[in-house]
């Protein structure tokens, strides 16, 4: 399992649009991607659950990636967070 931490810089947080693009990105990989904040964890394929976490600017989330392609997936998804969130 791979994991990384990221602090959200997008002023509105993980709102509808970035959450949608995140789901699309995660779908590309076989690994299970989980977003964790304050003890709550959500499968990153679940758009509405992701939005339901109400992740805001300044919040730090932990992201775990587990599966056959976890090395490539974790690197790509971390890049994605940096570029979009």
């Amino acid at each position, binding site marked *: 399992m791979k994991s990384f931490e990221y602090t959200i810089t997008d*002023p*509105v*947080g993980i*709102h*509808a*649009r970035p*959450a*949608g693009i995140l*789901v*699309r990105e995660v779908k590309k990989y076989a690994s299970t991607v989980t977003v964790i904040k304050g003890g709550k964890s959500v*499968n990153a*394929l*679940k*758009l*509405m*659950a992701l*939005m*339901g976490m*109400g992740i*805001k*600017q*300044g919040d730090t989330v932990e992201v775990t990636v587990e599966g056959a392609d976890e090395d490539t997936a974790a690197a790509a998804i971390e890049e994605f967070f940096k570029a979009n969130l």
Partner: protein
Amino acid sequence: MISVQGKGVSGGVAIGPLYCYQRAKSTIRRYEVEDVDAEWDRFKAAQTKAIEQLGELAEKAREEAGDEAALLFETHQMMAEDMEYEEAIQTAIRDKKLNAEAAVTDTAAQFAARFAAMEDAYFQARAADVKDVSDRIISALTGVVRGGIDSPVPVILAADDLSPSETVQLDKSRILGFVTEGGSDSGHTAILARTMGIPAIIGVGDQLKPEYEGREVIIDGSTGNVVIDADEDARSCLLRKMEEQKKMRELLEQLKGQPNETKDGQSIRVYCNIGSPDDVPAVLANDAGGVGLFRSEFLYLNCDDYPTEDYQFEAYKKALSDMGGKEVVIRTLDIGADKQIGYFDLPKEENPAMGNRALRICLNRPEIFHTQLRALFRASAFGKLGIMFPMVTSVWEVKEARKMCERVKEELTKEGIPFSDHVEIGIMIETPAAVLMSDRLAKEVDFFSCGTNDLTQYMLACDRQNADLGRFYNPHHPAVLRALKMVCDNAHRNGIWVGICGELGVDLSLTETFLAIGIDELSVSPHSVLPLRQKIRETTIFDVKQKILEDLLSDENTI
């Protein structure tokens, strides 16, 4: 004449007949199904159809309003096929043997309630998206087509609330403006109306009666006013405003996105003065670069007691996040003199203009200042914040205020509350003392902002509220202009920027002077941004700079 007040969320004036939106009401039947597999297939077919429709709407929105509007429908597509949403519907069909329509309705209610319960207004508004997506799937299941406009002429459309897909499906060529009973500022109807440049007013409640349908109505999106059967005076006044706005819009189209740059390439930032977060849409609509003065007094004037840290934090955060990363300079409490607040219990003064006011109150009553600074630094995590202290005369005052900032930052760090490390701290230059000490003060701060109203009053020892002193109160007085030049030179010598946030900033007869002395920023009311930009872009500063600077020091200058 009937006048109704709502909240304007998209500017502009429109006139036309009122039309009430007809929504095809489908009552959802609820029954137990025998063949759950067949019911699941019915759902999947309706879901696929809804996703296709959303794809078409996304394309339509892209053509009409651009990529941002299209993304909304693409997000709706993803919501329609969301794993968890689909699973909940599947459970309702398979385990409870519910028909697909009822399963979707129940699941929608459950998900919408989750969003509605969230703290943040943005996420709360997403409850409407869930319902919208679900309604679309239900329409596909029942085959009921959604309502539209059945009118030969363009109308002002009234509705209880419009969902984003309803808004985009409407034939725009027949809509002059929107009025809705409910709705929110960050709702998609408001956002789309703004993008499409149609006036919209929300939250009129039940004031708009169905019997008004067909009567002439004028709506003013900038004030939120709806007038039915306007009398001659109101009518001509609003029509004149419509004409002005049309001209303004043309100017905006020409000037939007253009730099505030003279013909020979000198640029100056044009920001806005605002009094509450509600003014932010106007700032963005007029294409200003940021907020140069956010007067925080409204928070204190709106309350019967000292506003709490959380209350202030929400207001600052809203302004910062709505500005989307553009700079917002918030001025700390500036009361006293002509602005008095009862619960402050300030003793009556003989000479209030020279009295206990602004930063002086804050330093004398640190608990009030402390609360405001905590709210400000907490909000700094949500955008680009500048903090500015009013009514400074001495270096020690700035040092003391900055010490308070450091204390607040230490507290927040200890409490684990995030704040930005890049908050700019500045001061207002309003007093002759601050002008003469500007070389020293510049070493203590990140920027200066000249409040020319008070600066003129103090430089000329002339009460700006005394009507008899009109000809003595002259903001063009060389003493004022020389003061500005001195401040500007001292700022630049110390590598900090300097702006003007008083009335003088909009005085187009002085724009060349400001450019000549090197002012970096002018902060003006939102509607003045574009006329000012136009003036700057018509100027060739090289031709006039020398003469302006000589005139400032000239013996001939005997005003």
